[in-house]
C-alpha cells in the first residue's frame, strides 16, 4: 500500500487511478521534486514526451532550501518559472559576520549590473517547487508532452540494452511501465540508487544543525547575519539569521555532535534558545523546525546504462554555500538537451556520458567548496580552531583576512574547462566567456541576452554576420546590432576583439568562439559539442 511519509504544503498532482496505465515512454523521471520537474519541463518544452512519477501528490512542507542563485533563476526563466520566483523572493546583497558579541566585518555581494536576475533570492522551497509545477501545468495546457502522476511509487527497476522496466505501486495496486531512459531525481536517500545496489560514498560531518523558521514582525534589515561563537548561554558554535518571504526568518544553530536530538527538538527548548537569540520581548511563531546532519558525497558514476541520476540522488553537499538545489538545477539544465538530442536521433548515446563528466566535475567543485566551509565552521583540531579564530580576530582590522572568513562560498555555476564537448577558442576574448563557461547575461537594446538563448544551439554574432549553416540540429541565429553592443556586452563577450562569433549550447554554455568562422568550422564545432567527433 502506498502511504505518505511527509505532510504536504500544496497538493498539486493528486492520484488519478485512470492515469495509472501500463505503457512505454521515452523518458520517465522518478521524483517530482524541483530537479525532476525542471528536467521534465525542459525535455517537454523541447518536444520530448516525459512522464514524472512521484510517491506523494504534492510539495512537502518545510522551508528546506531557501537560497536560490542567479544561475538557477536564469534556468528557471528559460523554463517559464523564473519571474514568479523573483517576484515572490527576497533579494539580499549584504552579509554581516560576527564573532562573539562583535561584528567582524560586512560584505556586499555587489551584483554586477546588466543582469536580468539578482545574485540571490531567498525563497522557501515549497514556493520554488510550486512555481515549477505551475509552469509545468502551463506547458501541459499548451500541449507540451508532459505528465506527472502522484502516488506512483517505483518499487522495482530492471534494465536491458533496449529499455528500462519499472514496477510501480499505487493506491489501487501495482502496474508496470517501460522507458527508453529513466532519470532518478529521488533525493539524497534515493530508493532508485538503493534498488540498483549502487554506493554513495563520502565524508560524514559530525555536527548537528537546528533549523527554526520563525514568523515575526521584525525590523532587521534584509541581510545575511552569521555568528561564529555567538554570545549565548548554551552557546551553539555558530548561528545564522536570514530573511524569507512572508515575514519568515531562518534561524540556524550549530549544536555540535553529542546532542540529545529529541530533547533539542522540544518546542520549549527551541523557544528558550530563540528567546535568548532575538532582542528581548520579540514575538514570533514557530513555522518549521528540524535538526539536520550532513555528508559530502557523490556517486562514482551519474550514469548507469539507461538510468541517469540528477540532484541530491547523485551528490550531496553541506548546506553552507547553497550548493544543493542550485547544483541540481544545473544537472537538469545539462541533461535535458543531451537526452532530447539522443532520443531524436540527432546525437549518439555516448553524449549522455558527458553528462556524468561535466556534472561530476561540478559536484566535485561543490563538494570541495562545501567541505572547506564546513572545516572553517567546525574546526577539526585544536590548532585548526586557533587559526580559525586568528582569522576572525584579524578580519576586524585587516582587509587581508576577510577573504579567508568562510561561512559558505555562495553557489556559482562551474565552467566545464577541458571537457570533451568544448570546441575551439579562436577568439582573443574575455576569460569569463571561454568555451565551457556559462554565458553571462548582458543588457540588449531590447531585454537581456539570455532571454534570446532559448534552449537550442545558438550562433551569436557580435559586430559581424551569422553565416548560413545547414545543420540537422535545431540552430538559432542571433546577430546583435550596434545598438545592442553595450559596454557590458563588449566587456563580457568581446574584450579587445572588434567582433566575435559564439556557438552556444542549449544550456547556455559556450561551445566555441571565433573572430569569424566558415560553415565547415561551425559544423565541426557542432559535431564536437554533440559528441559526434
Amino acid at each position, binding site marked *: 500500500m502506498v502511504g505518505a511519509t511527509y505532510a504536504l504544503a500544496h497538493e498539486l498532482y493528486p492520484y488519478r487511478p485512470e492515469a495509472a496505465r501500463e505503457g512505454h515512454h521515452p523518458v520517465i523521471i522518478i521524483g517530482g521534486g524541483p530537479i525532476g520537474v525542471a528536467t521534465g519541463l525542459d525535455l517537454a518544452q523541447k518536444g520530448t514526451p516525459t512522464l514524472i512519477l512521484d510517491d506523494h501528490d504534492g510539495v512537502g512542507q518545510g522551508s528546506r532550501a531557501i537560497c536560490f542563485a542567479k544561475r538557477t533563476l536564469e534556468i528557471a526563466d528559460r523554463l517559464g518559472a523564473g519571474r514568479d520566483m523573483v517576484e515572490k523572493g527576497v533579494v539580499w546583497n549584504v552579509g554581516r559576520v560576527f564573532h562573539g558579541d562583535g561584528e567582524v566585518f560586512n560584505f556586499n555581494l555587489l551584483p554586477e549590473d546588466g543582469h536580468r536576475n539578482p545574485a540571490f533570492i531567498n525563497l522557501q522551497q515549497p514556493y520554488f517547487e510550486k512555481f515549477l509545477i505551475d509552469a509545468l501545468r502551463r506547458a501541459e495546457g499548451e500541449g507540451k508532452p508532459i505528465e506527472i502522476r502522484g502516488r506512483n511509487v517505483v518499487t522495482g527497476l530492471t534494465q536491458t540494452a533496449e529499455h528500462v522496466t519499472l514496477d510501480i505501486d499505487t493506491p489501487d495496486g501495482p502496474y508496470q511501465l517501460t522507458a527508453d531512459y529513466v532519470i532518478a531525481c529521488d533525493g539524497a536517500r534515493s530508493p532508485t540508487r538503493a534498488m540498483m545496489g549502487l554506493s554513495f560514498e563520502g565524508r560524514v560531518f559530525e555536527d548537528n544543525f537546528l533549523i527554526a523558521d520563525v514568523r515575526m514582525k521584525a525590523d532587521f534589515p534584509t541581510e545575511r547575519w552569521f555568528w561564529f561563537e555567538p554570545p549565548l548561554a548554551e552557546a551553539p558554535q555558530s548561528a545564522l539569521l536570514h530573511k524569507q518571504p512572508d515575514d519568515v526568518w531562518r534561524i540556524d544553530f550549530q549544536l555540535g555532535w553529542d546532542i540529545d536530538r529529541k530533547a533539542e527538538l522540544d518546542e520549549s527548548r527551541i523557544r528558550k534558545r530563540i528567546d535568548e537569540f532575538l532582542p528581548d520581548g520579540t514575538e514570533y511563531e514557530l513555522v518549521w523546525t528540524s535538526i539536520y546532519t550532513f555528508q559530502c558525497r557523490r556517486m562514482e558514476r551519474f550514469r548507469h546504462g539507461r538510468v541517469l541520476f540528477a540532484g541530491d540522488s547523485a551528490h550531496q553537499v553541506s548546506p553552507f554555500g547553497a550548493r544543493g538545489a542550485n547544483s541540481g538545477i544545473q544537472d537538469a539544465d545539462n541533461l535535458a538537451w543531451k537526452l532530447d538530442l539522443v532520443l531524436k536521433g540527432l546525437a549518439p548515446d555516448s553524449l549522455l556520458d558527458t553528462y556524468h563528466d561535466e556534472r561530476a566535475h561540478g559536484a566535485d567543485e561543490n563538494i570541495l567548496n562545501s567541505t572547506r566551509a564546513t572545516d572553517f565552521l567546525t574546526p577539526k583540531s585544536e*590548532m585548526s580552531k*586557533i*587559526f580559525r*579564530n*586568528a*582569522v576572525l*580576530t*584579524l578580519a576586524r582590522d*585587516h582587509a*587581508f*583576512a576577510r577573504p*579567508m572568513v568562510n561561512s559558505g562560498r555562495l553557489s556559482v555555476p562551474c565552467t566545464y574547462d577541458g571537457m570533451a564537448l568544448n570546441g575551439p577558442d579562436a577568439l582573443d576574448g574575455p576569460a569569463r566567456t571561454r568555451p565551457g563557461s556559462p554565458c553571462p547575461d548582458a543588457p540588449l537594446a531590447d531585454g537581456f541576452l539570455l532571454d534570446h538563448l532559448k534552449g537550442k544551439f545558438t550562433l551569436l554574432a557580435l559586430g559581424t554576420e551569422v553565416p548560413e549553416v545547414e545543420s540537422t540540429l535545431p540552430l538559432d541565429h542571433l546577430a546583435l546590432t550596434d545598438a545592442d553592443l553595450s559596454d557590458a556586452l563588449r566587456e563580457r563577450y568581446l574584450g579587445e576583439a572588434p567582433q566575435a562569433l559564439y556557438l552556444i549550447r542549449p544550456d547556455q554554455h559556450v561551445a566555441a568562439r571565433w573572430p569569424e568562422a566558415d560553415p565547415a568550422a561551425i559544423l565541426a564545432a557542432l559535431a564536437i559539442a554533440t559528441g559526434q567527433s
Partner: protein
Amino acid sequence: MTLNTQPNIPEPDGFYDELIAAHHGLTKDQSDALNARLILILANHVGDRAVLRDALKAARP
C-alpha cells in the same frame, strides 16, 4: 620566486629577542593565538603560493 632559506634578517639576535618578547606575559592560549595571527600576517605579506607551499614543507617535522 623561491623560498629564501639563507640568512636574510639583519641583526638576527635582535629579531629573536623581539619575537620572544612579543610573547612575554601571555598564557599558552594567548601565545598560540599570537603565533597563528603572526603566521597569517606574514603569509599574506609573502603572498606567493609556491613560496608558501615550500615554507610549509620546510617547517614540517
